[in-house]
């Protein structure tokens, strides 16, 4: 449901069915709602059978990259005698995205159950859930739920009497966007600065503490119990467009929109309907200007691109952007694209870990140049300079933070050039003052 709004008839509520339903947070409440059936079932299956079921379901990573989950799990070595780890990435910090927060706030046991199944399937006894430092309320709720799950025997040395040990440990971050990048997250969990690591080695070979590790997003893991309960055919059947994108997905809609919230729809749902119907459309007298659909790290879509797009991995690529974490930042005709691009660049400059020169320098200089344009002190060659810097920030670094900064800049200039030119020519009054 589009929490805090009631469910819309066009939503397909699976993950969000119990958003806003506080008793679902307790172990007893979750059992009443059909909880922990999937974990019991999973513990009676072989790990390979679980992985095959997930592969067949078509579930893909919901954190942004869209990598097939079953395939990722199958990369974990077998019988290697090393400890394996499952890590749940609950470091949701992508601007525009606020779905994992609601999963943890309302259905903590769905996540615990998904983590326990995942841990069993990849041969791990320990799952760390890395929760961003600012999520104090989700952390509190998750802490209570994990305690209850231990008390009920779902977790611990002998999970549901299966003879399998499954521990879930909550780990609090401390304010660093980059720790949402999987290798940075592992460094952070190890008690280090959150610098991303060069890949290879990939986490399945040498991840957390140097051991085989799988990292999944909150929403991905929360979907797993539903797939085991209702079967891969059911999940695969949830598809309105491209068969490579299956299931339901939570779309966080925010910015200049009437009813911001999380809307759960079947993959392939038309973006036009999501924005104008489910999320209530534009504020009175306003028209849609642009959408940044993947959280902030993807190219900006024009109104035409957005209204013509289908909401799945392929549908948004087809319209020149990416699904990412599916946080839709909506801009109406009152928005200043130049300012918003500047604000995003400033975000990336602040969050750069500063390991790679292209990112450290690129995010800082693009921010400064955009700032000077907004102050009315831009020079005609500034747009060329921004594009040149952006090119050097794309595909050149250890992680994609720098690419993420470049994406809105390049697409902003390409698609809304007139707004940049207006500042440069003096036709538009400066927005920022002072140095």
């Amino acid at each position: 449901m589009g929490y805090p709004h009631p469910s819309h008839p066009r939503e397909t509520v699976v993950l969000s069915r119990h958003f806003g339903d506080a008793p679902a947070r307790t172990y007893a409440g979750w059992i009443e709602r059909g909880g922990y059936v999937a974990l019991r079932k999973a513990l009676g299956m072989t790990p390979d059978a679980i992985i095959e079921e997930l592969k067949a379901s078509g579930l893909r990573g919901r954190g942004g990259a869209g990598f097939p989950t079953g395939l990722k799990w199958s990369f974990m070595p077998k019988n290697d005698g090393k400890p394996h780890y499952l890590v749940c990435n609950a470091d949701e910090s992508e601007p525009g995205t606020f779905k994992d927060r609601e999963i943890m706030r309302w259905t903590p046991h769905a996540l615990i159950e998904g983590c326990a199944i995942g841990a069993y399937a990849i041969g791990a006894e320990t799952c760390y859930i890395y929760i961003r430092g600012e999520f104090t309320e989700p952390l509190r709720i998750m802490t209570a739920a994990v305690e209850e799950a231990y008390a009920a025997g779902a977790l611990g040395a002998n999970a549901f009497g299966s003879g399998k040990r499954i521990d879930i440990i909550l780990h609090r971050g401390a304010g660093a966007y980059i720790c949402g990048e999987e290798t940075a997250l592992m460094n952070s969990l190890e008690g280090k600065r959150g610098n991303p690591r060069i890949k290879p080695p990939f986490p399945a070979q040498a991840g957390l503490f140097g051991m085989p590790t799988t990292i999944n997003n909150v929403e991905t893991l929360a979907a797993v119990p539903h797939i085991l309960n209702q079967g891969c055919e059911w999940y695969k059947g949830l598809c309105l467009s491209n068969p490579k994108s299956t299931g339901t997905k939570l779309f966080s809609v925010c910015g200049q929109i009437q009813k911001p919230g999380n809307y759960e729809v079947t993959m392939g749902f038309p973006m036009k309907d999501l924005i104008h119907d489910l999320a209530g459309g534009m504020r009175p007298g306003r028209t849609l200007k642009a959408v940044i659909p993947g959280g902030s790290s993807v190219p900006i879509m024009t109104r035409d691109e957005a209204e013509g797009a289908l909401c799945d991995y392929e549908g948004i690529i087809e319209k020149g952007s990416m699904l990412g974490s599916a946080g839709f930042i909506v801009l109406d005709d009152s928005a200043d694209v130049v300012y918003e691009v500047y604000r995003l660049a400033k975000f990336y400059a602040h969050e750069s870990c500063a390991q790679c020169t292209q990112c450290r320098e690129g995010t800082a200089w693009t921010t400064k140049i955009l700032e000077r344009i907004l102050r009315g002190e831009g020079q005609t060659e500034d747009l060329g300079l921004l594009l040149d810097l952006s090119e050097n920030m794309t595909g050149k670094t250890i992680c994609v933070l720098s690419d993420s900064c470049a994406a809105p800049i390049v697409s902003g200039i390409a698609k809304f050039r007139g707004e940049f030119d207006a500042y440069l020519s003096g036709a538009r009054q400066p927005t920022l003052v002072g140095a």
Partner: protein
Amino acid sequence: MSAAGHAGAHAASGVHEPVFVAAVLAKLEALFPKYPTKQACLLPALWMVQEARGWISPQAMAEVGEVLGLTPAYVRGVVSFYTMYYQHPMGRHVVQVCTTSPCHLCGSSDVLKALLEATQCGELGATSPDGRFTVIEVECLGACGFATPVMIGNDFHDSVAPDRVPELLRGYA
């Protein structure tokens, strides 16, 4: 951070009262079996320091290093990476306001202005003259659908509008 934010009653004194004694030490030691290395307990240990003292002084960093077998310089390197660890004294209540694009589009600049005025902090990073508040900008609180989110200490407040600010602050002495 402005110089004003560093001044006031919380200024670092020369003597460091150890944080990791009695219950706090026991709480930290209870974490050790959950990780294969003691180093992995660094972030949790730093949180314990900040919860106890409101910030993380160089002496506290050295103490954490000692407890976990890390050098003070290493600990400082980690502390400085994470924006939520404060390396100087802050107001009793740290107010974090999201001003990133999704919230900016919904008017977070006005909320920030109202907070700076109502707390009498005046500018970002400065502590109010009464030592109650320090207002800082934060890069996305992960609650973009509830613009503008504001955190005061560990409390989360969503959908804050400028006119709600004075009432919101009244609950924090």
